């Protein structure tokens, strides 16, 4: 630890030693830390991530644990159309039921439908869009036609018919929404796969002698994920909204009303009971917004090269 400045000769000698050293060394892009988690770390470093995750966790917790602490959602125990108060936080509905309990319970159906449909759509979209885009040719033509067929099916009419045929329960709604909504994801995956298929690392993988399906799985699909993640989170929002529309038309289990169904029955009381429409609507709005924002932020962080290329 000498304070004296090194002489030019020393500097030169040091520089030469450095040059003579083995050619490459790892230049850490950031000091210390475990790098296994660097992608997710970027995601979890953002404060906004916690806000959105917190909102969603709160909604999930409230919907699935909350009803245990709230009142009975079906007992007509109170006076009709009581406004929100200290005792009944969200008031009562037109039959005198505890509205807080009903809204909490409604979240179960809405969230279940939203997440299930998004996951199903993403899976179907990745498989079919990936195969079509990566292999091209005849497979592409057939799969695109199949996707187009499902895309033009009117979801609402299909749902009404299915509800009449198979009964109106959540599984039917999830299936109907999924089969009409997956083509949107598949198209994105297909376009991405077609682009990626042209890239160097796919050729590199071919040169390494990998089979086509393996290249699709480990090179094409992971790189197609950023827009797919966004599309999937959008699907969560859209599924919740379409489910609301279906509930609005009366498709759905009337004993387990979703937020959409609550909105539906609130329409006759907009002037006499504003809280009936406000709270389920607010819930839908908050969840859809949080999921979309989260997806957007996830997209930015999960792409390892965005904003980090030197």
């Amino acid at each position: 630890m000498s304070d004296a400045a090194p002489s030019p000769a020393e500097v030169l000698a040091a520089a030469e030693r450095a040059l003579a050293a083995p050619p490459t060394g790892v230049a850490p892009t950031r000091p210390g830390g475990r790098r296994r988690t660097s992608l997710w770390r970027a995601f979890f470093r953002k404060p906004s991530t916690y806000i959105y995750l917190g909102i969603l966790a709160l909604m999930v917790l409230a919907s699935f644990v909350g009803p245990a602490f709230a009142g009975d959602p079906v007992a007509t125990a109170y006076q009709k159309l009581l406004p929100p108060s200290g005792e009944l936080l969200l008031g009562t509905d037109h039959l005198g039921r505890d509205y807080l309990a009903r809204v909490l319970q409604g979240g179960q159906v809405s969230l279940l439908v939203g997440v299930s449909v998004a996951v199903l759509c993403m899976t179907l979209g990745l498989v079919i869009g990936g195969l079509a885009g990566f292999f091209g040719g005849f497979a592409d033509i057939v799969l695109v036609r199949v996707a187009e067929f499902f895309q033009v099916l009117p979801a609402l009419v299909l749902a009404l018919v299915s509800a009449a045929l198979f009964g109106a329960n959540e599984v039917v709604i999830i299936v109907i929404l999924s089969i009409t909504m997956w083509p949107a994801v598949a198209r994105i995956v297909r376009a991405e796969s077609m682009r990626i298929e042209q890239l160097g690392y796919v050729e590199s993988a071919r040169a390494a002698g990998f089979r086509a399906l393996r290249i699709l799985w480990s090179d094409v699909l992971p790189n197609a994920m950023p827009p797919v993640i966004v599309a999937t989170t959008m699907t969560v929002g859209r599924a919740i909204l379409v489910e609301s529309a279906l509930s609005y038309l009366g498709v759905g289990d009337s004993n387990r009303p979703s937020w959409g169904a609550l909105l539906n029955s609130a329409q006759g009381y907009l002037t006499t009971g504003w809280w009936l429409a406000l709270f389920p609507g607010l819930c839908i709005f908050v969840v859809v917004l949080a999921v979309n924002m989260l997806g957007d932020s996830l997209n930015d962080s999960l792409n390892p090269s965005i904003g980090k290329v030197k």
Partner: protein
Amino acid sequence: MTTDRADEQAPLLRVEDLAVRLPTGRREMVDAVRAVSLTVRRGERVGIVGESGSGKSVTGRAIAGLLPENPRVRVTGSIRFDGVEHVGAPARAWQQVRAHRVGMIFQDPLTFLNPTMRVGRQVREAIPRRRGEPVEQEVLRCLALAGLTNVEEVVLRFPHELSGGMRQRVLVAIAIAKRPELIIADEPTTALDATVQQRVLQTLDETVTTLDTALVLISHDLAVVAGMTDRLYVMWGGRVVEAGPTAEVMSHPKHPYTQALLRSVLSLVDEEVELYSIPPAFRDWLRDEGAAVSFIDEAVR
């Protein structure tokens, strides 16, 4: 294995009269490669030089069966590994060739590495499963052989976190992971700056020597090829215009194109001489008749 017998009978790779037509538009086709013949023996280093569009890269890709899967792509002639014909072979046979026999190193290391996969996994995936020893050790060994230091760190990195030279070394590591009999390096150092280029070439040289792998080095840069290869093929307009031992071709170029190519390199060294470029009139002459004149050392064949 019948390596000895195969060595006597047939070289590792023999290409004869290879011609490749590629579609360039709705109707037009281009003869990217016409009647190229070349031979690579086990452990031999062969260079292919030529300017852009001379057909050298297409030849390299054809050897690995990596031309676009398009019914309009026409490959004729003969490509034989150990005497086994591969032109017209099913995709499966080509895939076996690429999985076990031929490694490729490409020009631009960033686009040829998967950006979403850690380096370690990319190397690991290129190692055939049948090898008995722990794969993780093998990954580290391949990276070290490719001249990377601090390999335990490197395996955890994503390609964009590495420097250009390191990425190129990762590509080398991937290419050697399967212990191929032949490595085709297509402009392996063109994307790197001059000093890094030298080091990467040196490593490639050492690696190929250590593993006793045959090498086909494709480059537009005579200087790169001259220092690393035993034999040299000069390509122009889709044809081999001159072939022979590297030292021979460099010291006594026979074909006017080779002479012109050499002059444009030498002029860079000698400050007195202006940078030589091939005059347009000469190009026209080459196009019309020059390329048809080939000077191929008969001893090579």
